[in-house]
């Protein structure tokens, strides 16, 4: 899937089939989901107050979202006081233009980037390339995805869809022109080579762009958590640091941020804390040992203020930990690319239709068995299945789903409300089906039931309905 592509959520069914048939992807998915699930359970077990912390974290975000204007204004005032600038952007296009302007102002040829899903939302890399600026991803997974000209398939593990062998081939191909001609096998060697290739890029970069896990209203700081330390080099070494974030990333205080961090890493990777937690406030001050000369925050709305006033507000509590993806059986079978846009998995199934339109992404909230594991593990207790159901309601109200389904549901509901007629019709149908299936006990094919029989037989009914037998006096 090339980077600068339109959303492909419309073709979810075909995307999913491709994912199911991709043996390498299936190998990667099985390994990563199992690992993350065990680690989360163990991390939660080690912290007796984990469930209480989830409640606390949720309350912090709910409070902030209820007073978002206040905290955003406070945040901007503090950024300004620290010598930085906040740029308010309504759309991804606005944000791209602001970022381009800032890069041009800094005379930038190379931009290093620490991981940011917001950059994916604004398709920043292809845009910068079009304008002669080279973006360099510094997160290892993002670097792999960039080299492969793909999109991230997971929000915290962007290259999780790739096997070690695939990465080995990719590095061999892309690093050969740099004089690194040996095909490496071991993970440690691959990581080391990426580090060596990236190191001079950090030093050459004119601008560093990072995302933000939190924006702190009381101090005007932005905070990122990483496991590779790449964020620190990205934001400290270049002349200018640009933070890109959406509105809902703000929290009132540093203490609030650290409370949420305690559930973030545990939910995401099962770590107690991410390896690096970096707080940056404004540009370099005269006494600072290092830091950028300029500090900018590009604050993107892109639909968030609309969601704030809608029945989907709760999804704005999301702290992008990825736990819902790590536990979703659908994500685990089809992989992240099937979802066709920036955010895969259960949270993507709620966010994507809200951000790019239900017409584009109507499959995503439907492609869930409502098993509820995502809600169970979400550190912010976002009722993801319930929000997906609300999207299905919108789909039904707006008549976006196929006419056959609408007619079918309507006819079925009409019949259900007429028990006598229902029993008469189903009694007859079940007698016929029961007689037909009695010898083999199952059907391998039935008219109009290919959706069922594609992957499994239909067990034959016993032959009479319960209600008919019960009325006859039972046979227990």
């Amino acid at each position: 899937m090339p980077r600068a592509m339109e959303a492909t959520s419309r073709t979810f069914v075909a995307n999913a089939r491709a994912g199911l048939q991709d043996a390498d992807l299936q190998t990667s998915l099985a390994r990563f989901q199992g690992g993350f699930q065990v680690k989360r359970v163990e991390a939660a077990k080690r912290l007796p107050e984990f469930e209480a912390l989830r409640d606390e974290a949720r309350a912090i975000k709910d409070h902030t979202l209820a007073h978002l204007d206040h905290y955003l204004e406070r945040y901007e005032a503090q950024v300004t006081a620290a010598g930085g600038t906040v740029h308010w952007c309504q759309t991804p296009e606005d944000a791209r233009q602001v970022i381009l302007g800032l890069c041009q102002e800094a005379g930038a040829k190379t931009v290093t980037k620490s991981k940011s899903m917001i950059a994916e939302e604004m398709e920043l890399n292809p845009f910068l390339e079009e304008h002669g600026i080279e973006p360099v991803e510094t997160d290892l997974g993002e670097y792999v995805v960039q080299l492969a000209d793909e999109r991230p398939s997971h929000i915290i593990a962007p290259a999780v869809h790739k096997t070690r062998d695939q990465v080995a081939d990719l590095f061999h191909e892309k690093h050969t022109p740099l004089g690194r001609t040996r095909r490496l096998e071991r993970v440690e060697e691959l990581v080391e080579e990426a580090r060596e290739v990236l190191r001079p890029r950090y030093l050459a970069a004119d601008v560093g762009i990072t995302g933000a896990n939190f924006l702190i209203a009381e101090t005007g700081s932005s905070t990122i958590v990483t496991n590779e330390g790449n964020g620190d080099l990205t934001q400290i070494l270049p002349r200018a640091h640009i933070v890109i974030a959406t509105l809902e990333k703000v929290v009132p205080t540093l203490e609030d941020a650290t409370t949420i961090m305690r559930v973030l890493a545990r939910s995401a990777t099962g770590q107690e804390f991410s390896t690096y937690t970096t707080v940056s406030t404004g540009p370099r001050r005269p006494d600072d040992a290092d830091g950028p000369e300029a500090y900018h925050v590009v604050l993107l709305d892109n639909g968030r203020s609309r969601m704030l006033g809608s029945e989907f507000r709760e999804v704005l509590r999301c702290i992008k930990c990825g736990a819902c993806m790590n536990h979703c059986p659908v994500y685990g079978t089809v992989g992240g690319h099937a979802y066709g846009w920036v955010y895969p998995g259960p949270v993507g199934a709620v966010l994507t239709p809200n951000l790019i339109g239900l017409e584009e992404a109507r499959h995503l909230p439907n492609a869930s068995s409502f098993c509820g594991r995502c809600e169970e593990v979400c550190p912010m207790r976002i009722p993801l299945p319930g929000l997906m159901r609300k999207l299905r309601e919108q789909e039904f109200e707006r008549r976006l789903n196929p006419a056959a389904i609408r007619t079918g549901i309507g006819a079925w509901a009409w019949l259900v409300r007429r028990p006598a007629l229902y029993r008469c019709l189903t009694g007859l149908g079940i007698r016929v089906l029961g007689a037909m299936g009695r010898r083999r006990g199952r059907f391998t094919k039935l008219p109009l039931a290919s959706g069922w029989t594609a992957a499994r037989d239909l067990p034959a009914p016993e032959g009479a309905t319960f209600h008919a037998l019960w009325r006859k006096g039972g046979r227990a």
Partner: protein
Amino acid sequence: MPASPRRVGLFVTCLVDLFRPTVGFAAAKLLERAGCEVVVPGAQVCCGQPAYNSGDSADTKAIARDVIAAFEPFDATVAPSGSCAGMIKRHYPALFAGDPHWEPRAQRLAARTFELVSFLTDECGVEEVDASHNGTVTYHDSCSSLRELGVRAQPRRLLASVDGLELAELSAPDVCCGFGGTFCVKYPDISGRMVADKAKDIAGTGAGTVLAGDMGCLLNIAGRLSREGSGVKARHVAEVLAGMTDRPAIGEPARGR
């Protein structure tokens, strides 16, 4: 055990009604043994989930109102399904939130609605059953039983009292089997892979029978096992607890033919 027998409205569920009446009779037998008087209201059909999960809230509410009216006369409403019980218990009140007439009625019914096995243990104080089953079984937790109703220990506790029965746990008992109502026919590729994974997990336990508390999961799992030519049988947990395993398992040919 409660002093006076309760009048229980048995919510049969549409899948038990159509595909597996045995489960309805097993439920009635277990409830009667626990001292309940069992009534099967004739006006019931379905809890409304197919409409609810398809986004058709108008039809869902119409169906839910019929269910509420049919079951509010009873001391308790019991379903041999975590999914249907969960619909009434967790979703009906939300469906009528803000409706001055129906919200209180939905809440009253919700408070008195239970999944069968947890009703037996938690409300009737049943600690053991009089049944036997020779062999190893495994148990699949339905998502709604597990996550909407917190039913996990109860079926295992009663199964432990079945003579000759051994329980071998799945490696991932809390993972969805891929049924998901209309999901399984709307996304057959994905659902098919999920149930194939479940069948693999079942085979790995070495059990001769897989049990569960929901006919949706069971039709899906039994259908997959039969498609793979597996010899593992599928039954509703109530059939084993009620000692009614003399009938062919789900998807098994009728005997003597």
